[in-house]
């Protein structure tokens, strides 16, 4: 308790930032893998596309903000091309889609290496500077990352749960044949969802680029953590994704402060394994409680039917 009490005031904002980065990098994968079920090994490369788009536009125009605005568009367009040309034929073949996205990841990574070389690149912090709260220095850009993450999660939740597109997407994912026979163009919905996931990865890559050094292997670094967050959070559950990201990102931030980065990553993997093992028990308990409450509520209003 005394360790945490000592630690939290110093590092609490870094915990928030790392948790936000975990959410940010996993948000796109939540859509492509969690919702669409594509084992998307190219997710890290869509982050890479976003980051290098920001870098390229910064180099060409001097405006990194313009680069960040274009990053999701470029990643989204490439997402459409990948989905229409490859993945749309592989939705019923998960292992084939795994291999295909691995191939796509290699092509994108090598193309970026050919264009920009393997030399490290940097994207300028668009704001710079920091502000002070309670005597602690908080960099403005890290604060922006946290706010942007909250905004993107809120927007994604609203899109999936409050719009006609989101409803059609959920119907398509849950029962594609029935959705198709109800007039939903499930092929277009899937393309749009994959493009959205790619665009989310693109904007994540652009946002975290100023706090990292870019190289063609940049995306691979985030791929494992993205999958861990989505798997522990539960496929298709945005609330679960945020919880898992806070758990893993927070654990990593605290452990990195206490021990070396390598051991911290190992311990986070252990936490992830425990999380995967215990998740069904927790979900089962939560579902039982929810079903019990729903049953009690329905007994108050129920009229026997069959």
């Amino acid at each position, binding site marked *: 308790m005394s360790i945490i009490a000592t630690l939290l005031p110093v590092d609490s904002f870094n915990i928030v930032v790392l948790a936000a980065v975990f959410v940010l990098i996993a948000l796109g994968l939540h859509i492509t893998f969690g919702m669409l079920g594509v084992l998307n090994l190219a997710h890290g490369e869509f982050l890479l596309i976003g980051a290098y788009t920001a870098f390229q536009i910064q180099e060409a125009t001097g405006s990194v903000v313009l680069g960040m605005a274009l990053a999701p568009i470029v990643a989204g367009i490439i997402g459409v091309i990948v989905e229409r040309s490859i993945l749309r034929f592989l939705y019923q073949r998960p292992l084939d889609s795994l291999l295909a996205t691995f191939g796509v990841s290699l092509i994108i990574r090598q193309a970026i290496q050919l264009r920009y070389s393997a030399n490290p690149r940097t994207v300028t912090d668009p704001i710079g500077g920091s502000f002070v709260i309670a005597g602690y220095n908080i960099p403005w850009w890290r604060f922006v990352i946290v706010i942007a993450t909250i905004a993107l999660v809120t927007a994604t939740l609203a899109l999936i749960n409050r719009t006609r597109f989101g409803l059609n997407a959920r*119907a398509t994912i849950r029962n594609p044949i029935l959705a198709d*026979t109800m007039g939903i163009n499930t092929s277009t919905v899937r393309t749009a969802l994959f493009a959205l996931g790619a665009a989310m990865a693109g904007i994540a890559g652009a946002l975290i680029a100023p706090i990292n050094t870019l190289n063609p292997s940049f995306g691979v670094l985030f791929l494992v953590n993205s999958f861990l967050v989505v798997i522990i959070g539960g496929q298709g559950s945005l609330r679960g994704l945020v919880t898992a990201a806070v758990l893993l990102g927070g654990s990593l931030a605290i452990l990195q402060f206490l021990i070396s980065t390598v051991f911290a990553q190992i311990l986070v993997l252990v936490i992830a394994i425990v999380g995967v093992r215990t998740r069904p028990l927790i979900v089962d308990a939560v579902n039982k409680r929810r079903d019990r409450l729903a049953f009690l509520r329905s007994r108050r209003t129920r009229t026997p*039917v*069959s």
Partner: protein
Amino acid sequence: MTTLLHVAGLNAGYGSSRVLRNVSLDITPGSVVCVMGRNGAGKTTLLKALMGVIPKQGSVVLQGSDITRWSSHRISRAGMVWVPQEDTVFPGLTVREHLTVACRHQEVAAAVAAAATLFPVLGDRLDQEAQTLSGGERKMLAIAQALEASPKLILMDEPTEGVAPVVVQDLITAIRVASRNAAIVLVEQNVDTAVAVGSYAYILERGQIVESGAIKELHEDGVLEERLGL
């Protein structure tokens, strides 16, 4: 009389297994046409083929448009909808969301109100997840969804199968309500239900149509009972 749906030389099946063989039929506007036959005769396969769920050869023309090669969503938007026998819900979606998904030509609130009027039990369960509904309630929901699309033709696959007798009467009433604005192709095993709501019948055996005619005449002549082994 004009033909709403004209099917000629329809062949369909699953993979290399051919189930339907050279099926031809006509549906006129406002009619309730029963498709009957023993288990495995190809009734469900016929509806799936018409709806574009499985591949087919032959010719299917809906109101003058050749829809043989159309995808399911395009067929649905052209006015032909399907009430499947099973897998009728989207897990995780509420009853209200099911009604919203199906709603294309009218305000969602009006469509939900119409569904609740036709099936009051659904009105009590609008915010309940549809997979928690009973079998009878799911059939009601599927029919309510079909009606929301303002269809010209509804393909119903055994809507009364496995449902309590008290609910069967509600479903028969709903089929009659639906037939006021749309033609219906009804796959039905129960002769009494088919005779009660149907005007014409096709009888399938081993994927081929072996009898057709006014359903009351087929019933009075004992053809239905003979062909169905009753």
